[in-house]
């Protein structure tokens, strides 16, 4: 009985592990390394913008400092968005 149980488990493992090798058709394409990097950078930049806003609202940044930092962060974010658009267009092309 133990032997049968082990055989069944072994068969299940082989079935699960070999499923991708038996797959027909292509796997879902990944977004590409550059696009993934840019999307991660975009998320981080948005978080930075929100953090700066919160720092300003809670009084850790003066109005002048906040304006300067916010402007700089948004410029960086725009660069990332432009690069992301370019990468996506290149991939689509």
């Amino acid at each position, binding site marked *: 009985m*133990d032997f049968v*149980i*082990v055989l069944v*488990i*072994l068969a*299940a*493992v082989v079935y*699960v*592990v*070999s*499923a*991708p*090798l038996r*797959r027909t058709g292509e*796997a*879902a394409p*990944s977004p590409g*390394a550059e696009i*993934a*990097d840019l999307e*991660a*950078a*975009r*998320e*981080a930049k*948005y*978080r*930075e*913008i*929100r*953090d*700066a806003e*919160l*720092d300003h*609202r*809670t*009084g*850790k*940044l*003066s109005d002048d*400092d906040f304006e300067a*930092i916010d402007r700089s962060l*948004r410029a960086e*974010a*725009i660069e990332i*968005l432009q690069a992301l658009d370019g990468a996506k267009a290149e991939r689509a092309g």
Partner: protein
Amino acid sequence: MALVGRALLILGLGVSVYGIGASLYGALQGGQRWVDSGRRAVYALAGVMTLAFVILEAAFLRSDFSFNVVAGHSSTTTPTFYKATAAWSSQEGSLLLWVWLLSLWSSLILFLTRRKVREITPYATAVLLGFATFFGSLTAFFANPFATTANPPSEGAGLNPLLRHASMMFHPPMLYSGYTLLAIPFAFAIGALITRRLNSEWIQVTRRFALAAWLFLGIGILLGARWSYTELGWGGYWAWDPVENAALMPWLCCTAFIHSIMIQEKRGMLKVWNASLILASGTLAVLGTFLVRSGILDSIHAFGASTLGVPFVILLGVMVTGSVALIIWRRADLRSDSQLDSLLSREAVFLFQNLVLVGMTFVIFWVTFFPLISEALTGTKVSVGPPAFRPFIVPLALVLVLLSGVGPLIAWRRVTAANLRRSFAFPVAAGLVALVVLLLVGGVSKRPFALAMFCLGTFVIASVGQELWRGVRARRAMTRDPVPRAFLQLIRRNRRRYGGYIVHAGLAVLLIGVAASSSFQHSHDVVLRPGQQAVVDGYRITYVRPIARATAEKISFGAVLDVAKGGRHVQTLTTTRGFYPAQDPTLGVVGRFFNGEEESQVGLRAGLTKDIWTVISPDLTPIQPLINQGDQVFLKAMSAAAALPPAQARAQITNLFAARDAAIGALADRWVRHPWAAEFLLIVSPLVTWIWLGAIVIAIGGLIALWPVPVLARRRATSAYAARLARELA
């Protein structure tokens, strides 16, 4: 089912080896199918290990003593809860737990990243399965939890009485969850270094696992401290024991990592630092497991010397060498994208804090391993204890607390002097008020380090309170929400930030408790007879009466104590010392009860301001002649019974067991009716409860920081900013 269990271990090993090969082949040949197959090997490993663990648990729960590990660590009289958790009280079961947890977390991360970081995941999968192969090999060939005996005993040895404590039963799963979760960012760091994908994407996908590792490891450490305080009978919660330090070192490194990755995410800085930190954390996690398994350093926790030392040393050597080699190889790709704008910035504070944390880790590592190094070089093993750590750790801890209060008050990138004054005014004032008040309290100034910790802790709590208040006020200015809703929304929308602030506040509370309880403790060792008293820190403690209990499982001698202050009754405490019989019959029928394991039940009154703690150490000398006499009597009787025909012998032995129970009962009765003097350790310690409260606050903060933002909210936030930026562009 033991055979099935063993087969599952071998199958798990085979799946792990296949998965390593499939993942690497897929990565190198560009075959996504093979990479996917490697990922599914991890899922299969999780399924197989789950089945194996279920089989082992079932064996413990049904007291199947054909399993050696069950016979050695459980018994029919072990309560069900401890039967269920006894699986990981053994070396074999705990190694299986390690592999099982690793397989679960690995499956989770690989499922979550099945369409992300595709260049990195094959290598990460290979590293994770490499760990699984190592630990799986140990369980399959060196410490097999499914080893059986053809002649199972009718009764097991039972669980080590010291481990019969709820904290100690959850302590290993928490620690091992921490260790195995650290393997995730470790593996992805290796993958990122190999593939040169060293921007923040690998950090973003593994950040929560690092935070979860930190949380579980911290909970495990504090459960161990709680066990030490309430079970071990020495009155303390932290002894700088090597196995305690083994869990603390990766926790400190991981704390540094989860802070400094924020800088890499925001500014693209500290890439070398972050890679080094997580590789060190993962290595220290394996080192911690090694220290418990090998018995290489003397410790009351260690399982004792085993044959696992050499394989662990090899694995650690590979991890250290490989990590260093990879960082050197990829040093050009690890250059920072930007520089520190100002020393007056949160980035700078994080950097200083990281230096402190790494410094603490280094000190602990050096002092912990110094006996081993000394023995290797000079042949003489020296022992080091808490006094070796304190001169370094205490000042570093003070700096760490200071920085944990400064960090929340300072903005990212830079801050002006005017904003510094505005942000620091209240917390600094609170710290100064604490200083003045405490200086007026007698005796505190004689402990300058404790005084400094109290003031800095007050500063931290005030800074966190100020930040929460300012955040609520800012939110209310935007939304007009009532204060409770604004508070909840503030935390909900900024979980990382405010979860972290709450952790800092919890840390301050905890370290205030540590400083107070270690600096202002009153401790007395006294010998008392019933009716006699001792005074500790103004508390009059009277030995009221002795108590005792005897069963076939153990005999315990104890005492009821009355605590009073200023003539008023405060608390009645009960403390006992339990003696469990050894399995060795040559120690005598009665004598084996007093030559086996012992455990203490402490008498504890825990309060917000003070703990009153006591433990009894009964002196067995007065009853030793009776024990010896009893052993002689039973020896003769057993010899006489052995000479009888089998049926009569069995009946006689049954009578002798009853006589044994009566004899043990008589000893217990003697303790109660004709008590002799006993030694008591009496301790009055301030603010110990703050340690456990601080730990709870830290756990809550960690959970808040860990909790994921709902996907829909994330998308809304993203598209809102995208629209805003689009307007700016226009």
